[in-house]
């Protein structure tokens, strides 16, 4: 450690603190305030928890929450796909570096681009249905983003398509740092591929899996706006409305920032709760790396 006088560290920290108070500090305090007011325009009277009561009565909010929860189905799917592909690449199949680069490409593409491209692919008269028809699977040629029953699942598939690459690269990076003698020893002891995966590799990946699951849960609950906005705009009807879009609509369409802030406050609390396992994980790995 450098020996400094008492104020020097704070001089170095001051610009960051100012910037973070502006982008995080003030807004987080303000949503608590806004959410307890009936705001028209800039401000409005204090109404206690009325906004919260309103949203819990609102059928559309219930749908939004339900849709975010349905999107959580993507988490185990992404986890399984990315672990399996990471392990296969880790076993150094021919061209594994090429495949790693290729499978990561979707994650580099911007979500709006992905959204616009897939919303064309998935049209009733789009290429996906043309393929299905030419394979004689006419009855599976559905209206992927027009039928309210399935649109949310189509969006989920697009999210999985883009986000799996991150999981693959994450798990592969971790696998490359584990002790391969463990795996070789298991092989010598006659463990088959599935046993090695389950008893040797997965325990080694435990902390990264935990990280990935928490990050993915937060993504599904609060970072899917760009997908929804570019693929379905929450529709048809409210079939794909999610909490973020609900906030956006109430704040900037319906001009009711009080209601929007109440939802933002709820989302914030949910994120805070989800953050705890992540912190436990971070301090654990920090310890491991120190030791």
């Amino acid at each position, binding site marked *: *450690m*450098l020996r*400094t006088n008492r104020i020097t*560290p*704070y001089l*170095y*920290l001051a*610009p*960051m603190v100012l*910037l*973070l108070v*502006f*982008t*995080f500090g003030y*807004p*987080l305090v*303000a*949503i608590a305030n*806004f959410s307890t007011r009936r705001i028209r325009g*800039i401000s409005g009277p204090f109404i206690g928890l009325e906004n919260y009561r309103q949203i819990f009565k609102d059928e559309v909010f219930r749908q939004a929450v339900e849709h975010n929860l349905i999107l959580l189905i993507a988490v185990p799917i992404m986890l399984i796909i990315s672990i*399996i*592909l990471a392990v*296969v690449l880790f*076993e150094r*199949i021919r061209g594994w570096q090429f*495949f790693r680069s290729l*499978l990561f490409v979707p994650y*580099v*593409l*911007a*979500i*709006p*681009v*992905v959204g*616009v*491209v897939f*919303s*064309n692919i998935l049209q009733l*008269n789009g290429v996906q249905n043309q393929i299905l028809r030419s394979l004689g699977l006419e009855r599976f040629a559905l209206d992927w983003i027009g039928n309210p029953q399935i649109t949310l699942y189509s969006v989920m598939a697009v999210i999985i*398509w883009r986000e799996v690459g991150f999981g693959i*690269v*994450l798990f*592969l*990076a971790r696998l*490359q740092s584990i002790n391969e003698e463990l795996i070789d020893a298991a092989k010598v002891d006659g463990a088959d*591929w599935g046993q090695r995966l389950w008893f040797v590799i997965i325990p080694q990946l435990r902390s990264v899996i935990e*990280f990935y699951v928490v990050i993915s849960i*937060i993504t599904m609950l*609060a*970072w899917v706006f760009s997908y929804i*906005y*570019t693929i379905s705009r929450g529709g048809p009807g409210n079939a794909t409305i999610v909490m973020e879009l609900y*906030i956006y609509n109430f*704040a*900037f369409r319906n001009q009711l*920032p009080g209601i929007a802030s109440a939802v*933002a406050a709820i*989302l914030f609390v949910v*994120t805070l709760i989800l953050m705890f396992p992540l912190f436990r994980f*971070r301090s654990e790995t920090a310890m491991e790396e120190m030791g």
Partner: protein
Amino acid sequence: MIVSDKSRPVRSYSLSADVVRYSLVILAALAVIFPLYFTVITSVKTDENYSRDKIGFPTEIHLENFNTALRGGRFFLWFKNSVILASGAVVISTIVSALAAFAFARMDFKIRNPLLSAVTALMIIPPVVMLVPLFVLLTNLGLTSTYWGAILVYGGMVTPFSVYLLTNFFKTIPFEIVESALLDGATSFDILWRIILPLSAPAMITMIVVNLLWVWNDLLIALVLLPQDNLRPLMVGITVFGSRYNKDVPVTMAGMLMASLPMIVVYLFGQRYFIRGLVAGAIKG
């Protein structure tokens, strides 16, 4: 950690296991390639060719879709806006984070650990939570619909990750190097500027790439803070463009292709920084 790139000899496995392995990877590769293939071939088809055949190669190559797209959308303007926003945010965030990370990594002060934990925690808070108050605040300051307002917001949003990454990296620089400079009478700022920063190039590049990507790909904040057509960044532009041309799929695809090119080029050249940076949040960079 560094993702090692050295190839090792292919190990021997049973044939059936190899069949399963290769099938899985090839299946995944096809799933990745198909939408990319579709975008590229569609972008050079005529609308008539597209409605007749959506899968096959174009009967003739038609590049005029790109012209139509350029006339219909203000790609160069959007692109310029994105460059201004992303580079402005990266400059601000880099300066602020380097100063703070230096204090976190190399100085002792009372609230160091709780403050660092709090800053790290901010990485996970979704921007949508802050959106309404930020809009109100910027409106009061007269900063909505200006580059400055958006640059400050973006700069702030990427700062927690930057501080986290740089603090961890600065800690790995051996103290002996710093000590010898101290003996020469260097001030703390000299140490940061002349010793720490030059040794931190890999971490800085990683951080810059990740932050550029973050700002470049944002849709929500730009949609709210920069509604005017002439200030729109690329992501808002192509979203509007995509819905305006949704009847003319080939032109839409030409637009999407042009919008993706910069990032694809950056990815091709800076792949290891991308991968290292995105993994850095989970496994230390």
